[in-house]
């Protein structure tokens, strides 16, 4: 994710790889969500990212900010559940804040704003067993100049680290202490997205 690769990533490949990562893990996401949520996360995310993939050529033709906004809107309209607005807000805000040809510094700032928007949308903060527990460490790693694959490993570890946390937000919060010991499905989805982006950028570099 250095400046050179951020200026001209193969957008269609990025979109397709991210969508494939979610779709191919839909069953795992559902299993995670069944443990402590309502079990719809995998199917909802699969529906949304299949819709994004179907339009990937059209998204890739747009300037990066417009493409991100359109992807976010598509997720909002197709995912459903609370995940639609949360993942949708991430991409929509990133699109709104990012420069047309961002360097790492621009990307770092835009990502921070996008993550704050997700926190506001979910009325949540880090430490509450959510996607934020992956997003904030990822943003810090981007800011610190880590390589894409280092960031992907860190995202996986951050998702894993949601296991001992107690859910405060979302359906899992109804379970209280019983949410402890399971990985948060939204955190896992986020790590999958980060890894797909990182590996595509690494292949491009």
């Amino acid at each position, binding site marked *: 994710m250095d400046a050179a690769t951020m200026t001209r990533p193969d957008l269609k490949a990025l979109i397709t790889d991210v969508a494939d990562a979610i779709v191919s893990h839909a069953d795992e996401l559902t299993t995670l969500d069944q443990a402590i949520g309502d079990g719809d996360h995998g199917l*909802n995310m699969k529906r949304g990212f299949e819709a994004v993939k179907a339009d990937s050529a059209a998204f890739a033709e747009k300037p990066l900010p417009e493409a991100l906004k359109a992807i976010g809107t598509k997720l909002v309209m197709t995912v459903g559940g609370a995940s639609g607005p949360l993942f949708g807000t991430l991409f929509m805000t990133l699109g709104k804040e990012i420069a047309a040809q961002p360097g790492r510094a621009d990307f770092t700032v835009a990502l921070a704003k996008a993550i704050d928007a997700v926190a506001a949308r979910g009325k949540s903060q880090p430490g509450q067993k959510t996607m934020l527990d992956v997003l904030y460490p990822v943003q810090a790693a981007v800011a610190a100049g880590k390589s894409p694959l280092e960031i992907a490993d860190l995202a996986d570890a951050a998702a894993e680290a949601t296991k001992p946390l107690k859910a405060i937000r979302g359906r899992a919060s109804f379970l209280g202490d019983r949410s402890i010991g399971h990985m948060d499905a939204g955190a896992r989805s986020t790590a999958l997205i980060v890894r797909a982006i990182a590996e595509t950028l690494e292949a491009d570099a």
Partner: protein
Amino acid sequence: MKNVGIVIVSHSSKVAEGTADMVRQMVGEEVPLAWCGGNADGGLGTQVGAIMEAIDRAWSEAGVAILVDLGGAETNSEMAVEMIGEPRSQKIVICNAPIVEGAVMAATEASGGASLKDVVATAHELAPA
């Protein structure tokens, strides 16, 4: 329609429709009313697009009060209001109230020509302390 409109958003289309039936029977036809529920595959869930359409159907220049059930219904309703955008979004409020009781009480208040602020306040009185 000059009365405030009511929108019911549930994860279940049956809950949403049933709540709307109760509002119609108890309050009558004087209030614009719309409901939505269920995901794109016919299962339980809520959808931003469906909520935006329901707001359109129940639209009133006096405003619209939305009653929701669990978590995602609220998050999706907030997203729908944001996507509708200003100036209409300023006249839409998501109520913190139990969905059935809130819908009936809000609609009762609305049917008498109350302002959006008063309709929402009536629903909020039902919220758990």
